[in-house]
């Protein structure tokens, strides 16, 4: 846990990536993940299923010789299955000791969301998907749901 903490603090201090978020779409909603976690974006590729895993863990894939786990964000949020298409991407993130891929409907852009434009979500957790949202950020008139990565990755 200390490693994660350090990692987090280090990245926080790094001004060049401060306040930057990679935004992606799941169904009609826009989400954001801190750019500090993002390693790269790859297009959909072959994934090997692993038995006995929570349903949102899609399997493992070969990222240039490294084996990484892949999670399906739709399934994690409890959204219905959607056929993968041209836009479907895997966002590869580094979080603590983990390198993991997240399957998203589409990747949008890198947005700068300064702290003052970020607000905590309404206290009542209205939907299952909401529990993975740590904050809500505003870009112009659009609302981006900022992902709570730790919560998102928790397997219980």
């Amino acid at each position, binding site marked *: 846990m200390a490693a994660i903490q350090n990692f987090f603090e280090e990245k926080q201090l790094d001004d060049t990536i401060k306040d930057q978020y990679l935004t992606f779409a799941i169904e009609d909603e826009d989400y954001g993940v801190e750019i500090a976690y993002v390693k790269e974006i790859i297009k959909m590729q*072959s994934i090997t*299923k692993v038995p006995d895993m929570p349903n949102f863990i899609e399997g493992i894939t070969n990222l240039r010789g490294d084996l990484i786990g892949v999670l399906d964000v739709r399934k994690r949020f409890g959204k219905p299955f959607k056929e993968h298409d041209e836009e479907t991407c895997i966002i590869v993130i580094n979080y603590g000791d983990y390198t993991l891929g997240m399957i998203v409907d589409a990747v949008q852009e890198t947005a700068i969301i300064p702290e003052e434009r970020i607000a905590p979500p309404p206290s009542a957790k209205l939907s299952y998907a909401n529990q993975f949202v740590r904050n809500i950020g505003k870009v112009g008139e659009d609302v981006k749901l900022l992902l709570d990565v730790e919560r998102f990755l928790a397997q219980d």
Partner: protein
Amino acid sequence: MTDFDRESMLEMFIFEMTQLIDQLEATIVQSESEYNMDQINEIFRVMHTIKGSSAMMMFDNIASVAHSIEDLFYYLREENPQGLDFKRLSDHVLSGADFVKEELAKLQGGEKPNGDGTELALAIDKFLHQIKGEESETSAPVGTGKSADTKPQNIGTTGENMHKYKAKIFFQDGCEMENIRAYTLVHNMQNFAADIVHVPADVIDESTIPLIRNEGFTVEFSSPRDYTFVYNHLGATVYLRELSLEDLSAPEDATIDAAPEIVNTETGDIHNIDVDIPMPEEPTIEEEHTMETPTLVETFAPSSPAEAAASAEAAQKKAGSASHMISVNVNKLDALLNLMGELVISEAMVTQNSELEGLQLESFNKETRQLRKIISNLQQTVMQMRMVPLSATFFRMHRIVRDMCRQLDKDVQLDIVGEETEVDKNIIEHIADPIMHIIRNSIDHGVELPAERKERGKAAKARVLLEAKNAGGDVLIIIKDDGRGINTQKVLAKAKANGLTSKPDAEYTDREIQQFIFLPGFSTNDQVTAFSGRGVGMDVVSSNLEIVGGTALVDSVPGEGTTFTLKIPLTLTIQEGMSVLVAGAQYTIPIANIIKSFKARPEDLFTDPSGNEMITNRGEIYNIVRLHDFFNIDGAVTDVCEGTLIQLENGEHVVCMLVDELIGQQQAVVKPMPKYFKKVRGLSGCTLLGNGDISLIIDVAGFFDK
């Protein structure tokens, strides 16, 4: 000295020391009741090296303890006193070894070795005095002069028996920091020598290193000691390659005595001595002994080429195995192994490339077969490089047994069999602890006190057998004692109390009950002893073994003893595997577990009343495991006769596994599952296929614990 230098020196130091201490312990424990001359010499040498190295690293506390032990053994070596109390002697040496170990542990943890060895050193010195007093009151005081801080006695420039010596020393190539070594040497000489003059003079200055390297380090001094003493003392210098010692006051030529002084005053250059002294050639050569260090170099030039060749050969022979060994950082071997893995994968990517499909490639296929052969040889060599015999790990157990016997008043003989069995370096690290815990457990809980053993009609001396042997792709480590065995009633009661049981008592077989002891926090020992009883230990066994993919079994007969069997894989990294297909996905089954594969005939299949599928094959009946059912995979072949059955064995158990079809044999570079994934029963890892896809590796053992 830069930090970097010191860092790598420190690493070498720790490595070297650990090896020496292991060696020392092995020597002592093997011969505790009586030391022969070889062992005394051995211990003396080890202690001398420890002293030298730690003094050089400026760990004075280690050096002083080593020094007193060295003194002690110097005396034993020279005087060979009779009727020694070897038990006490061993205790002293072992406590010294423990002290060094403790300090090394501190160093490894990045701390300063600040332990106080004074008391220990004093105790050892006292012991030495006692032996001297008891054994040889009349003999002259021998020893290298107590320790560095006591005043050198009897050393003056004008003593009657003073000898003048001139020594030339070459250090081994690549030993580094020759100047500091030279300094240490001179420092150590102060115990028995005076008037020390050396060239180069300012050895603290690093710029003298090349000089010492090329021209050697020349020391002149006078000493009351005889030639042999001085020669032996200098000869024990660490990293010594070559030593020549001349007695300048040799009786052949009386004028020599004065020679150095004349030279000194006239030219101030000691180098000239060689030319100025009218010393006959022959005696010099006779006087010049050459140290038989592993890299021996003859000091006199051979007169003919044939002789040169012969002497080189002799040198080679004398060098023995030591000079053919290099120590390599494990990280480098790991890197090599990773590269090897990638090579295997990319070879498959090339030779099984989809673009080659359907082409007639006679020559290409021939060449790729050759390539495969070379790569598999290379792979075997790389794997072989990582294999280490278990002997070091095994012999370390002697010490544990000894200590425990002493403290628990038990009498145990440890027999070691098959210690030459080799296992991957990474695996060895994980099994040393489990073996130690099991042995402790056996002695503490299993073995009875001598009196109790006699009552039961057993030999008073208990036996613990530590054995290693190969079994297919695994290594079995067996630890067997002839103690009282495991009390299943007690274990079951304890398991129940801890809420570990899941079915009525009566349904547990003895074997199942015995396995409880591997669970965390389990101990039947009512009293916590220094060695066991806290309930940690046996769960270390199972958790450590899990890391390396091994298993532990226990089998106990009440009153007769307990046998622990650890089954560990030979290597973690590259396995020969059979690729199989289930619902379009590939799985790899270790070849070592496969007996055969076959197609089922409908008439051989049947189902028992509880729904278990079985098959008869060649008169034997086997359970059928459907891989797709086990892993809940959809879309697989469900008709047993349509798919393929693979007969798998794990220990004495055999099952037939249903898969869709076989693909073929291939080298699997085992990669662990990504960290995010929890352990899945029946899977041991994954491997990359030639086309970049991933295949999961089946852990056959997982199918048997259900």
